[in-house]
């Protein structure tokens, strides 16, 4: 079984650092630690510049006047913070941010609770049909979203909920296969004796879940919560399909309409697009600043076999 999320992370770093002399590394080259680390750090520093430069460029562009956006100077010749107020004149950014926050929270709260509930069912109980059903959970993980896009739209249409934000999150009430998989892995790592002891003391099955499994799984739940916030914050396809009313737009949908208006074929106000893109990104960067260890450990777990 794969280790629970969060069991690797930082400690493994020390292992590499304390490796004995003569240890083999990239492509098996013999490298004595510390003394020969320099070239690797240089390669990484260069890669880090490549990866961060677009962010720096974006911040810089958001501070430039229209005529200088594409000049690629890192320090703007004329700093123009007014872009940020301008964006608000062109588009209801605050409404869109609020919509995205509402939708993302609804999506994350529902998916975390429901996926945990289902995952506990798969992790704790042995019951007929378990392997077949869990196989289906894994199978739907591989199913292209595009395949169910149209009929799911018709379901919401039938319920009269197209044109509202409900379809953007309500499906999460039923759990999501990837998170069910992730949380099941975590629940399996909890000592079974603990649950048996609680059973002997007369704890109900739901009590095992609610009073023991959930409180012990805060790191894993946090991963699911943040993953879903991020996924919801990025989602473009569903808002395109379900929302027509500008006042209901989420940030990606709103940003897309800004790009349509001010980008190619439009009025060419690239400084507005850059500024709006930055505003759409900042909340995720803040979340990442707080939760990065959890997020990265969660991603690392994803690639291991269950």
């Amino acid at each position, binding site marked *: 079984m794969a280790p629970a999320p969060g069991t690797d992370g930082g400690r493994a770093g020390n292992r590499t650092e304390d490796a004995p002399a003569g240890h083999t590394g990239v492509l098996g080259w013999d490298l004595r630690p510390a003394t020969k680390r320099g070239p690797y750090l240089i390669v990484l520093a260069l890669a880090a510049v490549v990866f961060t430069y677009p962010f720096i460029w974006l911040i810089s562009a958001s501070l430039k006047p229209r005529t200088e956006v594409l000049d690629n100077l890192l320090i703007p010749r004329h700093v123009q913070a007014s872009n940020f107020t301008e964006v608000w004149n062109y588009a209801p950014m605050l409404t869109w941010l609020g919509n995205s926050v509402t939708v993302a929270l609804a999506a994350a709260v529902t998916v975390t609770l429901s996926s945990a509930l289902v995952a506990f069912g798969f992790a704790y109980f042995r019951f007929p049909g378990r392997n077949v059903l869990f196989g289906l959970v894994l199978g739907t993980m591989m199913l292209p979203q595009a395949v169910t896009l149209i009929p799911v739209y018709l379901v919401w249409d039938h319920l009269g909920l197209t044109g509202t934000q409900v379809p953007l999150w309500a499906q999460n009430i039923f759990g999501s296969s990837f998170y069910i998989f992730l949380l099941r892995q975590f629940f399996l790592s909890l000592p079974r004796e603990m649950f048996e002891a609680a059973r002997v003391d007369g704890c109900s099955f739901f009590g095992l879940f609610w009073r023991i499994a959930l409180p012990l799984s805060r790191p894993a739940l946090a991963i699911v919560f943040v993953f879903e916030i991020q996924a919801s914050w990025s989602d473009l396809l569903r808002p395109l399909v379900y929302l027509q009313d500008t006042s209901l737009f989420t940030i990606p949908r709103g*940003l897309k309409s800004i790009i349509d208006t001010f980008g190619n074929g439009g009025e060419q106000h690239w400084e507005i697009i850059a500024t709006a893109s930055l505003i759409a990104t900042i909340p995720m960067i803040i979340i990442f600043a707080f939760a990065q260890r959890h997020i990265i450990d969660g991603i690392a777990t994803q690639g291991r076999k269950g």
Partner: protein
Amino acid sequence: MATQATLPKATAAKFRARARDWPQIRAAYGFISLWIVGFLVFTLGPMIVSLVLSFTDYNSIGTAKNVGFANYRELFQDPKVAHALSNTLVYVIIYVPTAMAVALGLAMVLNRVGRASGFFRTVFYLPVMTPTVAVGALFLLLLNGQQGLLNRTLDLVGINGPNWTTDTHWVKPGLAITMLWGVGGMVVIYLAALRQVPKELYEAVELDGAGSWARFRHVTIPMISGSLFFTMIVQTIAALQMFDQAYTMFFGAQQNSTYSNEAALFYVIYLFQQAFQFLHMGYASALAWLLFLITMVITAVQVRVSRRYVYYEGEKH
């Protein structure tokens, strides 16, 4: 005779065991019932509906008219389907191996620097947090032919960069570059896998006089093959569904755009247009099923080919 005598007894025991397990089974199904309902209403049901719709002419308002295999016949005659399909496959072939190679390279370098890897890992992961529409907008500017950052940088080393957003031959490589910016998730997965490789294995093959390439080929690759395989499958399925960035950069309300977006017409974009702009829901359902079949076939081939190479620790042979 003997078996006949024991059979009812065994069955009875089984039933007694079942009766004792019954509360457990009931509770288990209680816990997973949410998922079962969701699966029926949002996956299995829709797939059946989609299959039925694919044999109809349906515009989402009126009644669906049965047209037999007409949609499927049209699929094979629609030049845009062939075009979208070839765009998508070309993109998958460019992007997936490149992303895996870049991610593995970065992960191997990260694996060499000890404590500093945490910082760089974070830096590489940051773009993954960036909303896909913002990524599209950003790279629309960075990949601009005349003034874009990428070509300005290429100028410095004497390369006259192509027009990534308008030259039909360079649109898909340009999109691959856009997506490569988000390769950090794979880097994190590979780094975690590399750290699980037992050091003794390297020492053992070193004693056998293996060179660096041999060590990479015979130790590193087999030991992380599980993660390589996982990312290959997931990335291929995701790349086959390329939508957000391509749609942001090349499609939208401004249909009178000044540049050609033919080269960025990916399969799901065409499906989206057919379903929600032209309201050809039946035809779009047929498109969806073709995508499903193509995805299944590609995944099955990958599984089959990989089975020979993937090594899982602790797996019994």
